């Protein structure tokens, strides 16, 4: 049976954000982030942000694409500050509105 091998890189202290591709303008929170905490060079969490949620790596103007995995996953519906959570409150799908519980729509 296979045993996991070491990557060849030293284990690093648990980082706050995972950035999947260099073109991305959002990162993913790797643990719950506290408002005001420094999460990347020049980026401070604007609010408490939960594990798995997206965080703006830089300012994103309303109408600009949200880029994750190196591609657009939707558009900003508001101006978004670096360090802000990027979710239903400030972005939307370019395909279909996202259906939430109780028949509420995100758009």
């Amino acid at each position: 049976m296979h045993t996991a091998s070491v990557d060849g890189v030293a284990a690093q202290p648990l980082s706050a954000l995972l950035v999947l591709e260099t073109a991305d303008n959002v990162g993913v929170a790797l643990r719950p982030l506290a408002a005001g905490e420094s999460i990347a060079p020049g980026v401070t969490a604007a609010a408490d942000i939960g594990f798995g949620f997206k965080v703006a790596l830089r300012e994103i103007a309303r109408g600009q694409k949200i880029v994750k995995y190196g591609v657009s996953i939707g558009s900003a519906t508001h101006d978004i500050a670096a360090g802000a959570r990027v979710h239903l409150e400030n972005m939307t799908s370019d395909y279909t509105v996202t259906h939430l519980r109780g028949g509420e729509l995100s758009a």
Partner: protein
Amino acid sequence: MKGWLRQDGRKGIRNIVAVVYLVECAHHVAREIAHPDRENGVHLVGFPGCYPNPYARKVMERICTHPNVGAVLLVSLGCESFDRAGLAQAVAASGRPVETLIIQQAGGTRRTIEAGRDAVARMRSVLDAQVPVPMDVSELVVGTICGGSDATSGLTANPAMGRAFDLLVEAGAACIFEETGELIGCEGAMVPRAVTPELGHEIAESVSKAARYYATLGYGSFAPGNADGGLTTIEEKSMGAYAKSGASPISGLLKPGDVPPHGGLYLLDVVPDGEVRFGFPNISDNAEIVELMACGAHVTLFSTGRGSVVGSAIAPVIKVCANADTYRRLSDDMDIDAGRILEGRGTLDGVGREVFELILDVADGAPTASEAMGHQEFILTYKSFEPAGPACLPARAA
């Protein structure tokens, strides 16, 4: 790396006797034939239906002539409609030993099991005397699926497997990703990756076909729970699955049973053509693995967050676990701990390289976790497809 050379030029990384039931009524007898030798390279596969289906016939022929299969024993009840003579002929024409047992003629359960075990022993001794030949990475076909996904699948295991795919394609191997129903919203990213504009058009069409099909079935593809976990849009969710494909150009669009003509990255269209018939496109993860094997996949990469334990008959399954907690809980069932990326103990590139190297080990004979524990799942159901059009497999530029 070594492989068993088949008459069609392909090479197998295993040399298996397939015992095949051609209707559910022959399942028990076939299982009893295979069972004593299940850890000795004798695998059970089959089709349960009594009514004919060209898709099932084609997939079963591809499974019986899969490069990992060296010999085939067909087990028929006798009155089912499966074209057993045509299948036996196709297997014989591929240069493999093949025998057919018909339970109604052989004298029932007990006598057929005895005759079947004798046949398996003969086939096993023929295969055990065969000598493998050198095999190159460029001769491998590797598939990928995800199952038992959670929020971590699209962050760790899927992109890491995508990086392994890039390394394989670079080395000349053929790689196949699938499930067009989970690629809705990715057309914009996928179409420009197609090697010709015509292929790009076919890819976009296959995704809109999937969208129509799932809409008819009444599927909602984005659940409120997805948003609770931090996913915001359908295209974001799809991209998590799409990340399995890596970054190579897309060389073709396959349908189940189409074997990639050369190395490169391929999309497998798993959604049936025409009106909605026979229900869900694939009723469980193993149905997808069977279709990848029907396209010649020697190995399947399987990413899981919640923790699937399945393997497969015929072709080994490599389990890439996206979630570190799940890995700790189910470590016996997992081959790769990709969840450690989220704990700062690895990188996507590093885990991608580890997946690539494990594929080479497995191709060289190392058993995967599911293989070592005897997992040999197999399921084949009714579907219908039109043949892929000429634009789906563009000729490779010289």
